[in-house]
């Protein structure tokens, strides 16, 4: 049995409470509030206390999917990446970079947001990037 705690940040609201994820043999089993964070000081709300629960949900996507004959079907990473990269290149060549738009995520990390906007701006020479901050 291997139990450890990993300090991280709540994925729900903009308060950004720090918490400890309880990991038992590679699986999340619980959440504890961080006592040293000056904002949440050992407290969490109901969402934070349960934030580990959706992680091991059986509905999680575990393989890339490609639409074939109208249905989304499992595919390999190589196939999915080549297909997507190829289609994006075609659109850019045929219709220009402004014909592609990107939605980045208020739930993803700063690093991921940074990379997506860089891909959009450098790869397509367009500023068609937005996210759901307005929503």
């Amino acid at each position, binding site marked *: 049995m291997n139990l450890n705690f990993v300090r991280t940040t709540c994925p729900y609201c903009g308060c950004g409470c720090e918490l400890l994820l309880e990991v038992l043999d590679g699986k999340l089993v619980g959440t504890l509030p961080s006592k040293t964070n000056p904002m949440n000081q050992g407290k969490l709300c109901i969402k934070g206390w349960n934030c580990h629960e959706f992680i091991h949900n059986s509905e999680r996507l575990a393989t890339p999917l490609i639409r074939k004959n109208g249905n989304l079907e499992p595919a390999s990473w190589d196939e999915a990446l080549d297909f*997507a990269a190829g289609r994006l290149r075609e659109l850019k060549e045929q219709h220009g970079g402004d014909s592609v738009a990107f939605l980045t995520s208020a739930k993803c990390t*700063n690093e991921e947001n*940074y*990379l997506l906007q860089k891909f959009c701006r450098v*790869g397509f020479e367009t500023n068609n990037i937005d*996210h759901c901050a*307005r929503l």
Partner: protein
Amino acid sequence: MTNSIPEIEDADCIFVTGSNTTVAHPLVAHRIYRAKAKGAKLIVADPRRIHLASMADVYIRQNLGSDVAMLNGIMNIIIANGWHDQTFVDERTEGFDKFLEVIKNYTPERASEICGVSVEDLTRVAELYARSEKSTILYAMGITQHSHGVDNVKSLANLAMLTGKIGKPSTGVNPLRGQNNVQGACDMGGLPNVYPAYQAVTDEGVKKKFENAWQAQLSGKVGYTIMEMMHGLEDGSVKGMVVLGENPVGSDPDVNHVKHALQSAEFLAVIDIFLTDTAKLAHVVFPATAFAEKEGTFTNTERCVLRVRKAVDPPGEARPDWQIICDLSTRFGLPMSYASPEEIFREIASVAPSYAGLSYERLDKGPIPWPCPTADHPGTPILHTERFARGKGLFHAIEYRPPEELVDDEFPMQLTTGRFFPHYHTGTMTRNSPSLHKEMPEGHIELHPADAVDLGIKDGEYARIVSRRGEVETKVLLTDQVDRGTIFMSFHFMEANANVLTNAALDPICKIPEYKVCAVRVEKLDATSGATAAG
């Protein structure tokens, strides 16, 4: 936020408007409770009688969409009584005369007539806010999600400047951001008009800087906002779309329209952790990692940059989002390779001046609020202490405009939207969490008991809600939290989603859709159709 969350508890007066804080930002609400216990006065202005209203010293229920008139009226009263801070106005601001011209026209009587709050209550709010030493304003989507959302925000800034309640501890104008990393997504340039750290794409010098940093040719033209993208997909000017961890089917107003737009895309790629309603429409879906499966940073609503750390492996073949973007970019023909999120963060610090002094090494010791310009800078919990970003604070002269969609005979009631405590956004995460699902397994509307009598609907029965854009069937709960003539609904539940009904009318400047007000009709369902809705 201009100020930090812990500071709230030392305020003398807290003015909360358009934020159901106990539900949407529980740990901010906690500081409000503490402040109250220390003797602070609480003002709540909200069309819905939210939980905080029950503990407010003054609770005012303004008419939906009348915020500008209400705030202008309050400022009129402050000036008439000389409760404003003339020294602050003279030294730190400009545009006061023009502003005064407009405010003069919002006599207490006129403001009261538009917003439905008595002159007496407006005066109490004005006096409490202006005459307390440390007054702070907290607001959320109830202020911004209007076709005149920018006007509302500027009016709040006017109020804080007029009374000098900004740039000092426990004061300020504090937007409470809804999603965990909205602040970060904006900071990183996830917006059509700015590069990272709010550097304008239209500024030639800024563009040069990024062309050098990224060794690339860039566009100086402002891009499309989310709603413009949707229109573009429909009229064919936008052909392809890449969506990272968002579910616009569900979170965008007028769901039917958004679905149609995404279905018109020649190519749609979605990177997400669940097969959301948006992913179901995609041509290709990439399985991504959840917060507990990756390294990185989030930036919270007080601008604190916080570390996110990997605790467990992702399911099956799922990969970290940053690797997916690198691989996609490389195969597209733009080679991108980073060894780790930390290396990406170093690049962020090199192009975003407000993040320049931050590093994983520093953040591992604890969160730091930006601006943090150098490696030995402690971070900035309070903004605008000496000066505003633009130098002097600018007063905006703002006239009241009514909401876009008014009630009529066919659609006699107003719908407003928001969150319920156990759930979050479109429910993708919370409804897949057993404990949270159990708290509230299905959606409902809130209806005033007197309206329910008129409509012949009982508590717990089902009703059909119809707007100009669509209809949904859902359960009805009776409560006087809502005013007569108004219903409240959330967008957590895809099968009964308020955004099927909401209006996509946009604020002309920031293009926020008008979620908070639209006209609807409520119809009682007979027993049989009620059973289907329940099933």
